């Protein structure tokens, strides 16, 4: 059955074109995906991400549990409010999900996990938690709005008024604050996002979500749909679960080696495989730009000096004006790379990602 977020009517009232996204009825765009994309890069846009799942972990064993559950080390989180991006792995080292862990107190960590993987991830967390003194609570009554773009922080800070506004304006990158008694109820505001722009992800109670959405809209924040979210995140070099990684892929093969902590003495799920790949995994994820006209798409075959691979996420980049993509290919120097587009071998360039930095094409792209 199709699920709806609390903002469903608000999207329709703003003229959204709705699509099914992993069982959720979500806005694809509100007219033009490309205009929404540019608006986020140049000003501020907002996304309904309430389909993502907030999970609270509470109890004395929470930190120990997370040491086991995720590949990055939660011991890097020393100050309450700090956040960590990491992968949750199978026992064999495949990626169950990518997620953000927020450290709020010694007995309270918050996870935000993907929409599409919700059931699988909740079952996995529950199963893994059984050995630890930790209570796992899903928070379906919480909605989530991401406000992103160069004007996002100022706009949200102003909207929240003197005290709370100051608190969020001072938040460091990848940090969060729990705010009580704002005009929109209790909020959890994190300076995180999925667009490469500065901004916040705001967790709000469902009863206040529509009011917050409308207030942001009146403050000049443009609603943006899943279409723009996808082009923005790919430009920013951010991977999408299910497309760029899954349980058959290790973090090293998904260009997420930087999120792996092989810290001494920590037994975490999948560690054995990661140790075996620390000096080199059989496959790698590379960034591609195509100078020819056309669009790189998921599933297209990529030819390299070391053999064939395939396009993972691929799209037209509105900021660069060319097609960009991630591809998974055999390890090693890829050499000259071509992509099979409807039977034509089109040359592409291997580039570092992010493809876009500070709203501009990155050097070398």
């Amino acid at each position, binding site marked *: 059955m199709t699920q709806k977020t609390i903002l469903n009517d608000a999207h329709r009232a703003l003229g959204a074109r709705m699509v099914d996204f992993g069982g959720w009825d979500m806005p694809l765009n509100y007219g033009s995906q490309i205009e929404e994309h540019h608006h986020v890069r140049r000003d501020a846009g907002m996304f309904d991400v309430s389909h993502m799942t907030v999970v609270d972990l509470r109890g004395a064993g929470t930190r120990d549990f997370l040491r086991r559950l995720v590949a990055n080390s939660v011991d890097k989180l020393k100050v309450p409010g700090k956040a960590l991006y990491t992968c949750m792995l199978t026992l064999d080292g495949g990626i169950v999900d990518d997620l953000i862990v927020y450290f709020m107190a010694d007995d309270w960590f918050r996870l935000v996990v993907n929409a599409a993987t919700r059931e699988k991830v909740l079952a996995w967390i529950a199963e893994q938690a059984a050995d630890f003194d930790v209570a796992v609570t899903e928070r379906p009554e919480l909605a989530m709005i991401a406000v992103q773009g160069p004007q996002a922080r100022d706009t949200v800070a102003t909207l929240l008024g003197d005290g709370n506004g100051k608190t969020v304006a001072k938040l460091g990158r990848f940090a969060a604050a729990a705010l009580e008694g704002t005009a929109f109820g209790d909020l959890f505001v994190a300076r995180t996002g999925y667009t490469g722009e500065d901004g916040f992800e705001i967790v709000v109670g469902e009863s206040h979500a529509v009011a917050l959405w409308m207030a942001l809209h009146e403050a000049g924040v443009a609603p943006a749909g899943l*279409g723009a979210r996808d082009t923005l995140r790919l430009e920013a070099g951010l991977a999408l679960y299910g497309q760029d990684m899954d349980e058959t892929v290790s973090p090293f093969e998904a260009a997420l080696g930087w999120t792996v902590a092989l810290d001494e003495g920590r037994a975490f799920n999948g560690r054995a495989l990661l140790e075996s790949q620390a000096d080199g995994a059989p496959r790698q994820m590379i960034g591609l730009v195509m100078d020819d006209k056309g669009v790189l798409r998921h599933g297209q075959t990529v030819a390299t000096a070391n053999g064939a691979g395939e396009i993972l996420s691929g799209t037209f980049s509105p900021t660069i004006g060319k097609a960009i993509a991630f591809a998974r290919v055999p390890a090693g120097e890829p050499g000259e790379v071509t992509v099979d587009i409807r039977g034509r071998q089109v040359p592409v360039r291997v580039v570092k990602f992010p493809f876009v930095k500070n709203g501009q094409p990155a050097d070398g792209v």
Partner: protein
Amino acid sequence: MSEIPGDLKFLKSHEWVRIEGDGKVTIGISDHAQGLLGDLVYVELPAVGDDIQAGTGVAVVESVKAASDVYAPVSGTITAVNEALADKPETINEDAYGEGWLFVVELSEPDQLNELLAPDEYAEQIEGEED
């Protein structure tokens, strides 16, 4: 939904055909189709001189979202293509029935025109598609 010009004929797969009266027709995709596709970023057109067969894919329009084949509504020879779309594919979004035309065909089987949908038949079809 925008008005559908009364002088056009259509394929179910959203191509339009304008009869130019000199044995030639101009072909494009409907305003409804460009709306479904969203922002267009690339158009792959046939070459002038190509012989095309009704019902086969002859062009590709790509939006940010997806690539879609454009099918030939009629058989014949391509006599002109809209080169301007190479630099401005978004013209199709802005003016699907005018400046956003794709190519011109000299008909080899003029009777095929009788099999195409009239504007009201096409309007009925796309109404049925909507939620």
